[in-house]
């Protein structure tokens, strides 16, 4: 199939937008009291009684939650895509340079001194990830300037950062009294239930990041060919890489500070779309945003409705579904 790239992008985005719409409405209409698809549609359309209990649940609880899930999924999937391209490593994900470690340390410290989930834990976690980002940016600046250094030095630096943070996290947990440990574990596994409606505007911060990354989609294609080749074709490699690194880390930090460490979305979604759509980032960037959002909404829905009481951490679902799905795609591709 040889469609012009512009039309391909439009078509794919349109299709994935429909998927996103459907999964959103599905997630909004499903809850402990069962599924009320048409009633939900009516309420969302502004019909029906605005003061009914169902309407309140939908506007105050489920819709904000779906918006959060969509932002988390889209951001993490896009973050994974960018890092896989920047580091030219298929195992890269948004947390690989230590952003997760920094924010986890911040969050745990906030919990230990007894701050509330918002704004205390969120601010501490965001600060933690910014500190790591500062370090990683310095490292990137010095490794990029030196063409003689191996291309993996940034990756290795990030992995070391993560290892160091993991040790600090273990230390903090080992010093913690048991009733707090569960809070910490839930945060580390990722949790979408703590968000309040008033915090939603913070999520708007990720939108300009999406736009910048989309503009850099074609340069990312060239970065896959190696830094020298990208340079030779007119890309300012150092600036492009630093900008992508900072923008991506910032949006991931915002998301992590609100939702904790939800794993696997950032790793598997980019791979799934790369298998289906090929390596062109102009196509992959919008697909990962929309597809990651839909996937997260779907997983969060399952995390809410599967257990007979309460809910389970959504990070468990993302990996339980994503890993087999990816392996199936990989096998089908090879036959």
């Amino acid at each position, binding site marked *: 199939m040889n469609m012009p790239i512009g039309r391909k992008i439009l078509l794919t985005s349109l299709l994935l937008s429909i998927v996103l719409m459907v999964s959103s409405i599905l997630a909004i209409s499903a809850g402990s009291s069962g599924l009320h698809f048409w009633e939900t549609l009516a309420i969302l359309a502004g019909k029906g009684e605005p003061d009914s209990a169902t309407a309140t649940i939908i506007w105050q609880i489920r819709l904000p939650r779906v918006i959060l899930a969509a932002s988390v999924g889209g951001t993490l999937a896009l973050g994974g895509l960018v890092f896989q391209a920047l580091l030219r490593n298929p195992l890269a994900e948004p947390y690989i340079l230590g952003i997760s470690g920094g924010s986890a340390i911040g969050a745990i410290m906030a919990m230990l001194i007894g701050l509330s989930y918002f704004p205390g834990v969120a601010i501490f976690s965001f600060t933690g990830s910014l500190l790591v980002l500062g370090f990683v940016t310095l490292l990137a600046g010095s490794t990029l300037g030196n063409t003689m250094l191996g291309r993996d030095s940034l990756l290795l630096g990030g992995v070391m950062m993560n290892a160091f943070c993991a040790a600090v996290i273990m230390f903090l947990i080992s010093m913690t009294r048991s009733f707090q440990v569960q809070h910490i574990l839930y945060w580390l596994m990722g949790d979408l239930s703590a968000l309040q409606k008033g915090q939603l505007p913070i999520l708007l911060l990720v939108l300009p990041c999406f736009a910048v990354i989309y503009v850099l989609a*074609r340069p990312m294609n060239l970065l*896959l060919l190696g830094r020298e080749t990208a*340079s030779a074709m007119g890309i300012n490699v150092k600036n492009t890489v630093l900008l992508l690194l900072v923008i991506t880390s910032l949006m991931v930090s915002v998301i992590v500070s609100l939702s904790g460490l939800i794993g696997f979305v950032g790793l598997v979604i980019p791979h799934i779309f790369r298998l289906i759509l*090929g390596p062109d980032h102009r196509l992959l960037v919008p697909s990962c945003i929309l597809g990651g959002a839909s996937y997260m909404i779907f997983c969060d829905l399952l995390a809410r409705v599967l257990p007979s009481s309460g809910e389970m951490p959504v990070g468990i679902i993302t990996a339980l579904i994503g890993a087999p799905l990816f392996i199936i795609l990989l096998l089908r591709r090879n036959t």
Partner: protein
Amino acid sequence: MNNILDIRNISLNYRNKIILSDVSCEVKRGEFFVIIGPNGAGKTSLLKILAGLQKAQQGSVLIKGKNISAYTRRSLSKTMAIVPQQIEIGFPFSVTETVIMGRTPHLGILGMESEKDFAIAQEAMAFTEVTHLAERKLFQLSGGELQRVIIARAICQQPDIILLDEPTTALDPAHQLKIMDLMEKFRREHGTTIIMVSHDLNLASMYSDRLLLLKEGRVVKTGTPKTVLHKKLLEESYGCEMEIDESPLGQVARVTPVPDKYKPL
């Protein structure tokens, strides 16, 4: 001014090791210029400095009379394309996608190619005879095919100068000639300057207008193949015995490295 490239007193050190030392030369517009020399002589480093991928610690490079540092990455890429020694084929881009990447320095901010860009890519692919491979992935190509795809990408940049780093090293004789013939034909038709690093002294002898012989980062000699492919110079530079005679094709020097078993006792 006739020189498209002026290289003046370039030096490059890395960790106290001299890579290039006081290298000067000029390349004329439309010239087929080949850089030769033993391994580690600094050929690839020199090529990278010319391409702006590496900065020399001393000296200057003038491209079309303007210092290379005054070019933006983008404007430099419109002037000069490079065919690197190693090509990344790990990501499954198709031949067409790869070739059209050469349009990068000519595209707008969203990086969308126009019909015109596609036409230029088609023409480049036709020239290097890879049109029939258009939908193949890079990792499905043979060495010769891959090299022609990368050359098509360089042509797509519409540069004044094409730099090639040992483009024939891994190829059989027929494919070596194919690549060299393509470059020669492109130069004749478009007046593009060709600068090539090569280990193949006989190809260099047959195709180049002028040669630059490097040894340990210094210029040993610059000049026509006849003057540079000189027994004494080559033996001293490469450190092995060489015989030089006239090729059966006539008018060109033929270089034969002499193995031990053929040396008189």
